[in-house]
């Protein structure tokens, strides 16, 4: 114990040195350029400037953050392009760490557990993720393959994260949150971009993008990227097998053919190779399990088209996409999914104070999979059809000071039939600077393919082992069931936003979620198995809906522009989960307080613009312990320094997790993949535009 502490203090000191070096490196520049003692209170008054002067000013924040966020009756957080660049995040999961109320834990180099407001896990099934309107939530296990959800990060316009249900607009599965990754229009990515990055964890990453103009009002871009990550280390400090590398490419075309019609066509294609260490059950004595390094790959592609048309008082949008995902984990499971989706939406301004939105959609899912002793999914081929429609009306009252939104989604899926997800949201403007909102909504999480027809062998109890004393080996297995139904949520949310001064704002959201029919695993009658003679017993635990309970939490986020060039922001997330088995449940797993989610999280971030086009960012983050997994709490410190010596060139370098040499963040559920440690890393990068 004492050696760990001592170790950490040394690390702390070395982190301090790295920091100091970073800041000292930029200080002489700062000294040289400051033309005398600056007055920190001297905020720019633009009315004292002429048009010519104003035209010469650099805009530092082109962020659109204040817009929609300020007048939505939901807990919304927007990650801007600038936020991504300045955080030094190398992937979308890493960028999500700055969102209040969201939990991001890395399992190994290529796997994450990401959740919103609880229920975190590698197979978290209550978070919906969309990239440019395309749902990337897999119908296989109702979760997200985070390692393939990637775009050129420089092309991201923003990531909008809504905590809490978004089911009325986005449908089933938008239970605890919706993440919308939105890329820039091709018009805004004209010209060339070449980037290269290397670091102690990311061996290499390169990307190329080129954008051009086809004709007036029609623009395109194409991109390609490649990256390769070193394997991390396991709990004992030995090199793990979790390296990965990936190649991706894609294009986007945006056209404003006429003033009332616009089109977008975009597509991506990718191939990832990943490694991991797997432990799978086996019937061979003496271990009845085998552990080995496993190499698999993910590949896929998608194509999306969208047509927007505006009328004088209304607008329509028609979107279609095809998405293909291949997973090949040769020793365990393979799966090929094809999703065809079509969506139509119509926004209508009705008179002075009403806005009506309605739409409908259809999704067809084709799945083909290959099984192993560990994982088997029946049927081997399935075809699902889902239909949906929604209607939502926003009414403005009291001289526009109050907005009421009422609506519902109506859906039909082949497992549970008809589902509806209504909500009521109220936004009130108290003063010009303050607003409050409240919402009550219902959301459902519809069953995934695995919850209907899976057999997952989790472990083997050797013959003769107490308390069973079975003469044959006993395989503990998780089974799906056609009787498994939807999980239900009734959510109550309130929020408050204030722009206290021109430089300080606070956004506060609180919620109480009441869940029913959550998934439990009920023991079933043992089955004798083996061919040709029975050689083992299967002890099934069958997916059922016998858990329920409540969660509540509060998530304040504050931003303070101390000076025009220095911004501090911070957030705290409190989450309390009280999920328990129903009285009639026989599920033997003990209830875990707070599940696999941290009770407390906070961060503090400083973003500073220095002269000579230098920028410096620091972020300190705290994540509470996960008692259910025996994972201790941790602090992390990230530093990023960017420098743009000329307008075409951007240099960046930084370090992540500078406070700890290594730490474990999560232990995955269901599939026994070896978790690896997150290490202290440094990186440097260069990007050139032309």
């Amino acid at each position, binding site marked *: 114990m004492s050696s760990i502490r001592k170790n950490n203090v040394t690390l702390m000191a070395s982190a301090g040195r790295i920091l100091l070096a970073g800041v000292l490196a930029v200080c002489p520049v700062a000294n040289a350029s400051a033309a005398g003692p600056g007055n920190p209170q001297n905020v720019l008054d633009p009315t004292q400037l002429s048009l010519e002067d104003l035209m010469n000013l*650099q805009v530092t924040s082109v962020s659109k953050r204040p817009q929609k966020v300020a007048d939505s009756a939901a807990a919304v957080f927007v990650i801007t392009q600038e936020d991504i660049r300045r955080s030094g995040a190398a992937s979308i999961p890493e960028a999500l760490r700055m969102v209040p109320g969201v939990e991001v834990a890395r399992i190994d180099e290529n796997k994450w557990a990401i959740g919103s407001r609880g229920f975190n896990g590698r197979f978290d099934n209550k978070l919906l993720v969309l990239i440019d309107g395309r749902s990337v939530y897999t119908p296989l296990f109702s979760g997200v393959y985070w390692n393939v959800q990637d775009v050129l990060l420089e092309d991201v316009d923003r990531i909008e994260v809504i905590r809490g249900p978004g089911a009325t607009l986005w449908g089933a599965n938008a239970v605890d949150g919706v993440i919308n990754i939105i890329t820039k229009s091709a018009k805004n990515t004209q010209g060339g971009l070449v980037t290269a990055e290397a670091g102690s964890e990311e061996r290499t990453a390169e990307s190329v993008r080129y954008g051009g103009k086809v004709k007036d009002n029609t623009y395109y871009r194409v991109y390609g990227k490649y990256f390769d990550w070193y394997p991390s280390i396991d709990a004992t400090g030995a090199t793990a097998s979790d390296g990965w590398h990936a190649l991706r490419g894609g294009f986007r075309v945006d056209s404003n053919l006429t003033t009332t019609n616009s089109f977008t066509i975009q597509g991506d294609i990718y191939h990832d190779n990943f490694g991991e260490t797997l432990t799978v059950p086996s019937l061979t004595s003496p271990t009845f399990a085998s552990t080995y390094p496993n190499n698999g790959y993910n590949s896929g592609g998608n194509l999306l088209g969208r047509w927007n048309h505006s009328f004088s008082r209304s607008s329509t949008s028609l979107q279609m996409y095809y998405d293909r995902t291949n997973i090949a984990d040769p020793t365990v499971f393979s799966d090929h999914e094809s999703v065809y989706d079509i969506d139509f939406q119509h926004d209508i*301004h009705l008179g002075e104070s009403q806005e009506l939105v309605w739409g409908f959609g259809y999704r067809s899912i084709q799945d083909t999979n290959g099984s192993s002793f560990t994982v088997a999914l029946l049927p081997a081929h399935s075809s699902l059809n889902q239909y949906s429609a929604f209607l939502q009306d926003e009414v403005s009252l009291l001289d526009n000071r109050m907005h009421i939104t009422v609506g519902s989604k109506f859906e039909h899926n082949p497992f549970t039939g008809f589902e509806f997800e209504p909500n009521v949201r109220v936004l009130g403007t108290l003063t010009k600077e303050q607003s409050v909102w409240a919402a009550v909504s219902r959301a459902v999480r519809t069953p995934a393919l695995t919850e209907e027809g899976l057999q997952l062998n989790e472990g083997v109890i050797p013959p003769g082992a107490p308390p069973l004393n079975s003469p044959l080996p006993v395989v503990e297995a998780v089974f799906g069931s056609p009787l498994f139904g939807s999980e239900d949520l009734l959510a109550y949310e309130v929020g408050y936003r204030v722009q206290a001064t021109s430089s300080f704002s606070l956004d506060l959201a609180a919620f109480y979620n009441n869940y029913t029919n959550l998934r439990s695993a009920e023991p079933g009658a043992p089955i004798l198995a083996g061919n040709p003679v029975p050689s083992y017993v299967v002890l099934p635990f069958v997916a059922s809906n016998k858990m329920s309970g409540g969660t509540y939490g509060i998530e304040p986020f504050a931003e303070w522009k101390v000076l025009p060039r220095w911004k501090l922001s911070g957030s705290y997330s409190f989450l309390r989960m009280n999920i328990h088995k129903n009285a009639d449940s026989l599920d033997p797993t003990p209830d875990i307080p707070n599940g696999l989610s941290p009770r407390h999280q906070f961060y503090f971030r400083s973003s500073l613009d220095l002269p000579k086009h230098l920028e410096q960012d620091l972020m300190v983050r705290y994540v509470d312990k996960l008692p259910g997994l025996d994972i201790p709490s941790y602090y992390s410190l990230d530093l990023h320094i960017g420098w743009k010596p000329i307008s075409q060139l951007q240099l960046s370098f930084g370090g992540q997790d500078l406070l700890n040499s290594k730490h474990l963040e999560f232990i995955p559920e269901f599939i026994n993949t070896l978790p690896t440690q997150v290490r202290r890393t440094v990186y440097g990068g260069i990007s050139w535009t032309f």
Partner: protein
Amino acid sequence: MRLLRPIIAIGICLSLTLGASAQALDSSDSSEYLIKAGFIYNFAKLVGWPQGAFAQPDSPIVIGILGTDPFGGIIDRILADKQIDARHFVIKRLKWGMDLKGCDILFIGSSEASHLEEVIRSLKGLPILTIGETPGFARRGCIINLIVEDNKVRFEVNLDAAKQADLNISSRLLALARIIPQPTADAR
């Protein structure tokens, strides 16, 4: 002890950034909407409204912000105690469908893109300086459109629209503007 380390870490970060920033201050950079508010103030100075547009010599200049407000409180703070000749500023937040005719300047937010033509049509013949910040707005009939290019704010002027509104735009303003050609037939 467990809490001490992070507090020290935060302390170090803070003091370092503070130290660095005290050195670093100069005002050559600023936020987009602070700058845009400055543009609007300058436009108010450099545009001549026709006789009768203001009831009294000290009638305020009414600025309407239509749709989603990107300024937050910035524009109110900037213009709170400013006046041009004897005219103060009044800022109003407006939503599509409300009466826009009482404005002298109307800032049309990006949220109104889908029905911009109808907004412009409802103001036809009125001496209201329309200002947008969305690509294509000037071509679609907005008098002035602010655009951000290479992190600097530029603006376009639609002279035809200004003439229809009976507004006189000073040559100083025009010299810095990008003049947008007459709207073509397909914009109607």
